[in-house]
């Protein structure tokens, strides 16, 4: 087995007396699309935020390419080659799509005033190529905030791509999308991996999407990992079925 790209070991995060994530361990292999699911309040977002550098783990560690990044700030995590997208739309709304992508490239390359002249270790994908990949090439001169919601989320993926990441963290990529946009989002995530070699770690509510594209899935319930495996394994897992019982989830 190849060395994991992202390794999470015994990760626990408490908020006062609440244990939002308890002893979570998993590894994302290079080229893998890895999903984290769970009912509301399962601790998915907490786990996501610890990896993305918004919270420090209470205990345990996060390693990326063999380097410990536990507790690193979000910009340090970004500079290591982990890009992220947001559940809500985060783009520079008043700027054109082109300016958005340009800004992402310079924010990554010139991450501090002293790095003004030095080069970013990761190659920055070209702007036109990224736009074409995302199907945004005709919209480059449109103001990002004027685009449809789904397209704004696509611009958000473009921003993350301009960082030149090896791993993309996606926080509910299908949230707020209509059914046809969801299908497009699933295809896009697959193409990110297949054509760009970007591994993906996603947190998602939308079961068909997760089951359809993820290589492996981690299921959390009340902060505790209850299953880890392929979509087929997870779907037939009794603990998972129990956790979701009574909710309106339908495993596709």
């Amino acid at each position: 087995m190849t060395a994991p790209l992202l390794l999470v070991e015994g990760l626990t995060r408490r908020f006062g007396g609440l244990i939002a994530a308890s002893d979570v361990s998993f590894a994302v292999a290079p080229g893998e699309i890895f999903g984290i699911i769970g009912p509301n309040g399962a601790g998915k977002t907490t786990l996501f935020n610890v990896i993305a550098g918004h919270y420090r783990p209470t205990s345990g560690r996060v390693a990326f390419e063999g380097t410990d990044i536990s507790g690193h700030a979000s910009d340090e995590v970004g500079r290591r080659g982990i890009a992220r997208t947001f559940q809500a739309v985060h783009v520079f709304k008043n700027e054109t799509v082109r300016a958005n992508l340009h800004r992402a490239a310079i924010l990554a390359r010139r991450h501090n005033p002293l790095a003004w002249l030095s080069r970013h270790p990761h190659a920055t994908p070209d702007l036109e190529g990224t736009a074409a990949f995302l199907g945004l090439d005709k919209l480059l001169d449109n103001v990002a905030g004027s685009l449809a919601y789904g397209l704004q989320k696509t611009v958000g993926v473009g921003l993350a791509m301009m960082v030149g990441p090896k791993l993309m963290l996606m926080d509910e990529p299908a949230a707020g999308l209509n059914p046809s946009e969801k299908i497009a989002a699933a295809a896009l995530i697959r193409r990110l991996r297949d054509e760009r070699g970007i591994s993906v770690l996603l947190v998602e509510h939308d079961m068909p999407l997760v089951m359809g594209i993820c290589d492996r899935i981690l299921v959390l319930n009340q902060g505790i990992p209850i299953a880890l495996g392929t979509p087929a394994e997870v779907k037939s897992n009794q603990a998972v079925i129990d956790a979701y019982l009574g909710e309106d989830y339908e495993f596709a």
Partner: protein
Amino acid sequence: MKLRVVYGLILLLAILPWFIGSRYIFHIATMIVIMIPLVLGMHLMVRIGQLSLAHPAFWGVGAYASALLTMRLGMPPLLSILVGALIPSLMALVLGPIFLRIKGVFFVLLTFAFGEIVDLVFQEWTDLFGGNSGLYGIPKFSILGLRLTQIPHYYVLGLIAAVLIYLLMRAIERSDIGAILESLNEDEMLSRSMGANALAWRVAAFVVSAFVAGISGGIYAFYIGFLSPDPFGFQTIVDLIVMVTVGGAGTVLGPVLGAIVTVPLPELLRDAREYQLMIYGVCLIGFMKFAKQGLISFIVDKRSGA
């Protein structure tokens, strides 16, 4: 096109003092050009989303430092203005990492407290700064054997500095640095996720803005020839806020217009001095209510970039 008209008008105003020929008009014009770098420094902080009340203090540090460098160490005036401006930037470099972790009203309060401390030091450290009785005997500015003795000479010096610093700030705004600062202000979480070190960029902006405030202070010191702590206190904070608000914070040109309009006001209102602050207040409320983007918004829309 309209923007060209504004530049033309500013150019006309800039040469107007020679047509009037009055020393008094030259004095007001000189004060305007001295205030421009200071207000542009303050404006750079507004652009990164922080209202700094420390800038009058940086201005004062630049003024005292350049005066003392020439008086005590015999440094040539131009050099002492430049070196003198490095001192407030060093202060910004040290304080920035502490102050700029904090946003909004607490940053405002911290910078206000810092300004008050600096003002107190000017007042109490009488051996160095001359205290409330002031620092006398600042020599005239001279460069390459040329000695500036008349008010118009200082006007030209101030004008050159104002134009250079305006061009510098405009270049910053139009460059990638401007885009980075604006990105951080617009969506910090997004910008940081892409790797940008928000604090480092904010500190850099603070350092540059303190430097231009210091330059303004140095020119002021050589022009006035006498320094007391008085101008570096609260009144200047109010003046700068009025300039940025009236002119408009959206572009670099806005604060310049703000300075042109606001600096002569106390002179025009001379007979109504006790009402001056009240009139400032009314102006502020008026602009914030009816023209949030300031005077500049009547001339040019923000996106065309002045």
